[in-house]
């Protein structure tokens, strides 16, 4: 395949991917789920425990600090690690782990970095919704949001979605098109948790939580873990199942600014993460075959479609309603059902689906073209952004 001089060869590759079991009830601790995913990922890479010399652990920022710790190293019996870190940078941590692991293997610091996420938002006495009912403190006055009733991620994201609606004229039916398209993808994914067919009418009939946010605008929290192994691009790792080459990486961050001047609801620093990732890969949005866009809410899918250059400002809602992100559309998006209907493992949802696609293991939803695949992560309240561009080609 001819490549122009501006296209840069892979900096690293994802040589292994592993999952724990997924569940909607409390069955195992986060460290146990993390270990299951880690062991599966190392096996998938065709490696042995002794080959792993770096370990990155990602704990959910919404979880208690002791839920998942560096003790995972002890659990896994990894005696001589040359690189170790705990990530709790909100939900961009998955792609941050990939970013820093890629730099480390490219520099020769380590050979194989195991990157692990696990979370148990559903506890014996806590539902998935309750896990995300804590306030996102927009005011930073203790108790302020509780006093005014602004609860949960749905509260602060509801404000963002309403602002977007006011600025763009996006309609409930257009947000519904995102939910319906994502469900259509989930139906094709054996790993997906929600596979009951959904119509626009089903979406419109779903319960209002924090209007404009309905139940079907929200991600589906589960207990589970996912892990990847990042190896040098020219390493033999990858085994029989193949590798996903890392061609582009980018981050962009701008914390929630409560004193104006920055309209985070209609343009985020995803724009900066996009620019950096496209520049590194030497491509643009038109080259992307399919996109895995962070979709904790239907609104964030639309936000990503605009920030990553697939639509103009305010045009993503119509783009989704025209069917472009659904099966058969021109930009297949969240092909595993995303976080809305697939499985919510924060940034690992999008990254794991991209790896399954690029390595040809996406079964009934397999995309033929895996030349350039975009993965995005978003954390906080659209504050933190990270992107990766993966490919089945090293160059």
């Amino acid at each position, binding site marked *: 395949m001819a490549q122009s001089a501006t296209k840069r060869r892979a900096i690293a590759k994802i040589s292994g991917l592993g999952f724990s079991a997924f569940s909607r009830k409390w069955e195992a601790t986060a460290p146990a789920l993390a270990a299951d995913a880690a062991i599966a990922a190392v096996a998938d890479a065709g490696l042995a425990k002794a080959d792993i010399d770096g370990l990155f652990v990602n704990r959910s*920022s*919404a979880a208690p600090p002791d839920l998942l710790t560096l003790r995972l190293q002890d659990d896994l019996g990894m005696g001589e690690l040359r690189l170790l870190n705990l990530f709790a940078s*909100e939900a961009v941590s998955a792609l941050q782990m990939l970013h820093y692991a890629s730099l480390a293997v490219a520099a020769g610091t380590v050979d194989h970095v195991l990157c692990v996420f696990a979370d148990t938002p559903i506890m014996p006495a806590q539902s998935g919704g309750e896990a*995300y*009912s*804590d*306030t*996102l*403190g*927009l*005011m*930073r*006055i*203790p*108790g*302020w*949001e*509780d*006093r*005014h*009733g*602004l*609860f*949960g*991620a*749905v*509260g602060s994201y*509801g*404000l*963002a979605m*309403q*602002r977007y609606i*006011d600025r763009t004229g996006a309609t409930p039916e257009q947000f519904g098109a995102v939910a319906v398209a994502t469900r259509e993808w989930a139906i094709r994914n054996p790993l997906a948790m929600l596979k009951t067919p959904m119509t626009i009418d089903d979406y419109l009939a779903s*319960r*209002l*939580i*924090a*209007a*404009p*946010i309905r139940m079907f605008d929200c991600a589906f929290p589960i207990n589970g873990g996912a892990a990847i192994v990042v190896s040098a691009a020219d390493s033999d790792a990858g085994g029989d199942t193949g590798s996903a080459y890392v061609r582009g990486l980018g981050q962009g961050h701008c914390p929630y600014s*409560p*004193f*104006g*001047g920055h309209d985070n*609801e209609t343009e985020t620093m995803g724009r900066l993460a996009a620019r950096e990732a496209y520049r590194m890969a030497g491509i643009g949005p038109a080259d992307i075959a399919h996109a895995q866009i962070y979709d904790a809410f239907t609104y964030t899918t639309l936000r990503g479609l605009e920030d990553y250059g697939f639509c103009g400002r305010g045009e993503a809602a119509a783009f989704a309603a025209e069917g472009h992100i659904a099966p058969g559309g021109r930009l297949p998006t969240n092909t595993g059902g995303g976080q809305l209907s697939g499985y919510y493992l924060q940034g690992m949802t999008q990254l794991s689906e991209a790896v399954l696609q690029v390595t040809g293991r996406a079964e009934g939803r397999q995309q033929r073209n895996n030349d350039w695949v975009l993965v995005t992560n978003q954390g906080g309240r659209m504050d933190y952004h990270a992107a990766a561009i993966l490919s089945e080609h090293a160059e």
Partner: protein
Amino acid sequence: MSADRAMADPSLAAAFEDALDAGTLLLRRCTACGLMLPPDRALCPSCWSKALEWREAKGTGTVYSAVEFHRAFGDIPIPYIVVQVELDEGPRVIGWAEGKLAGGTRVRARLADYRDTKRLLFEPLNFERG
């Protein structure tokens, strides 16, 4: 999710709450560059000056966004409305509204008793209490 957003200096929160109890909405102002800041700030994020002072907010602003809760997370009866208002001084604040307020509506803040504290109640600027 929210733990790392706790206010850095509890004395600022206390001063803010004391003023609120006395009927005044306070903001911070950077004496070095003049930027108006939310009440939690001890450092000007623009010029890095620590020379900040309290300023009373006029209480007028424009609705930036709003959300209507239909699911109860706490013990506040549903449905209810929470608004995000950009004050005329610049900072955006979270407040309460007793009716729907569309984005762009000009509003004035009133400090309303709420349990053992006060909260910000935003009303349309042309609203006359009967």
